[in-house]
């Protein structure tokens, strides 16, 4: 059995397999099997049993998400499935690989998922900067149509599905589920009020499921090998493998498919090769810009949803951003908050007004113009922009590296203020 299903179809040169090669390697067998032998509910149950949780950052159980879609003869149509390929979380570069190097795995996963919820139309939502990915998915879709895996009456099953590529035009908010739906409707990517949840009223007011690229790429393998197999892939029982990555001053930055629950130490020291010579680990963000810092004391944490949560952060996207001792923590957090302030859509006041304020304070501290009471103002923000006070998860996410940065690197913030300069800049 494959212990690295997600990268099984990825050639060493990362050139994507064409449809013939993919089929020859076992591709589209899962689709053939489920169309012949399984009802939509069976597919949904299999995904539920596998324990698969969303790989886009929030980690919501995929099968449960699907189960909220109205089914049966009276269900509204068209229903939609959207693959979220708006990968824009700073430090995250995993969906790019799956889009560029395993396009048919994604498409097969999407067709099976669409069958499970009886969707009529599917979109692959790709961020505008991923020009190569869009080209590859477009070409692969054409192949899949040609082969009869898409369109009317797929493989004689009576199930029909149209699939389109939508390339976006750049905005972090498009990765937020309801923001993405607004973007697909040709609007500003502001978030929507929930309820109604997209599962009942999503794209164009119809039932819609939005899943991450990596999540959907797991689906064919779960159908082929079953939920028990999937669960056993992980080290800690949460199911599956994960595309983990590392960037920053490590010896071998990169991306690896590993069992879910691998320790941070193994990820950092073994796969990423440890810190570059002359650099020490100061802290790291475990899963993208909107996750809390972890430090050296957390290296034995298992990188799964539960354990990273217990350590005070989130697994997020599973791509770690390493901060070394020669990088200024205030500058690091300032860079993150500048991103979030720019990407705030402006829809709700705390986020629109709060994030630029945070950014300006951090800039002042970095420039040597900070005051001690600025640290209190930053702390207030981590509460006022926290969960429950804003329309979507952007601002609460932005507060995660800030609150943990203030906690773990407080001395460094204070030194900037006392010395009226950035100690990292000569």
């Amino acid at each position, binding site marked *: 059995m494959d212990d690295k299903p997600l990268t099984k179809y990825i050639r060493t040169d990362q050139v994507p397999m064409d449809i013939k090669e993919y089929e020859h390697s076992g591709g589209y067998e899962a689709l053939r099997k489920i169309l012949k032998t399984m009802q939509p509910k069976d597919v949904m149950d299999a995904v539920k049993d596998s324990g698969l949780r969303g790989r886009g950052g929030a980690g919501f159980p995929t099968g449960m998400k699907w189960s909220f879609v109205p089914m049966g003869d009276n269900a509204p149509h068209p229903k939609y499935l959207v693959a979220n390929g708006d*990968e*824009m*979380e*700073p*430090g*995250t*570069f995993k*969906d*790019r690989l799956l889009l560029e190097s395993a396009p048919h795995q994604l498409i097969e996963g999407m067709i099976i998922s669409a069958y499970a919820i009886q969707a009529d139309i599917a979109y692959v939502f790709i*961020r*505008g*900067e*991923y*020009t*190569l990915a869009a080209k590859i998915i477009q070409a692969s879709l054409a192949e899949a149509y040609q082969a009869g895996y898409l369109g009317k009456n797929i493989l004689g099953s009576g199930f029909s599905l149209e699939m*389109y590529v939508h*390339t*976006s*035009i*750049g*905005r*972090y908010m498009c990765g937020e589920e309801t923001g993405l739906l607004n*973007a*697909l*409707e*040709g*609007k*500003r*990517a502001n978030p929507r009020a929930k309820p109604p949840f997209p599962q009942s009223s999503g794209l*164009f007011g119809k039932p819609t499921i939005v899943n991450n690229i990596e999540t959907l790429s797991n689906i064919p393998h779960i159908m082929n090998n079953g939920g028990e197999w999937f669960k056993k892939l992980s080290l800690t029982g949460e199911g599956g493998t994960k595309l983990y*990555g*590392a*960037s*920053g*001053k490590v010896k071998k*930055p*990169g*991306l690896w498919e590993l069992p879910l629950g691998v320790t941070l130490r193994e990820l950092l020291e073994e796969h990423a090769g440890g810190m570059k010579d002359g650099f020490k680990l100061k802290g790291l*963000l475990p899963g993208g*810009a909107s996750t809390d810092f972890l430090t050296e004391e957390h290296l034995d944490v298992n990188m799964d949803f539960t354990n990273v949560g217990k350590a005070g952060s989130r697994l997020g996207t599973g*791509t770690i*951003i*390493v*901060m*070394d001792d020669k*990088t200024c923590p205030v*500058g*690091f957090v300032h*860079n*993150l908050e500048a*991103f979030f302030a*720019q*990407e705030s*859509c402006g829809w709700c006041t705390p986020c629109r007004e709060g994030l630029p304020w945070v950014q300006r304070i951090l800039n002042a501290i970095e420039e040597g113009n900070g005051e001690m009471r600025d640290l209190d103002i930053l702390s207030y923000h981590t509460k006022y922009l926290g969960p429950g006070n804003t329309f979507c998860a952007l601002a609460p996410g932005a507060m995660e590296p800030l609150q943990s940065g203030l906690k773990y690197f407080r001395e460094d913030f204070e030194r900037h203020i006392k010395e009226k300069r950035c100690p990292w800049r000569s």
Partner: protein
Amino acid sequence: MLTEEEKHEIEEEFKLYPYKSAAAIEALKVVQKHRRWVSDESIKDIAQLLGITPDELDSVATFYNLIYRKPVGRNVIHICNSVSCWVMGYESVLKHLIDHLGITYGQTSSDGRFTLLPVQCLGTCDHAPALMINGDLYRDLTPDIINSILEKYQ
């Protein structure tokens, strides 16, 4: 005035959506593809085709980072300024670009050859720093290789 070709391409997009205004983003992309940017006049023309007001369309056009509401040069450089590129020293690459081209963010070189813009994380963080020119990705950058990359874009 939109050209017949632009109109045709936008109308093709209508087929993928239940109503015309849903194709707003596609329509903006079509016009930008032909004209490199989207002028006030184009906003009015596209809005009319979509059956929405120009203000409504402009609220969409100005929301997104990759639609240009001002003229840009023949080549657009997007340099990633997000955290991994920052840690890996994108600022030295940026400084080189600014010195070499004599322009900073939002500006176009006097010969109309380059426009320089920042961009959010390009999703290639294991090869930081990175930038994109006209959609082509360049990675593992150091200041000394920038000029040879720029040479490809006249």
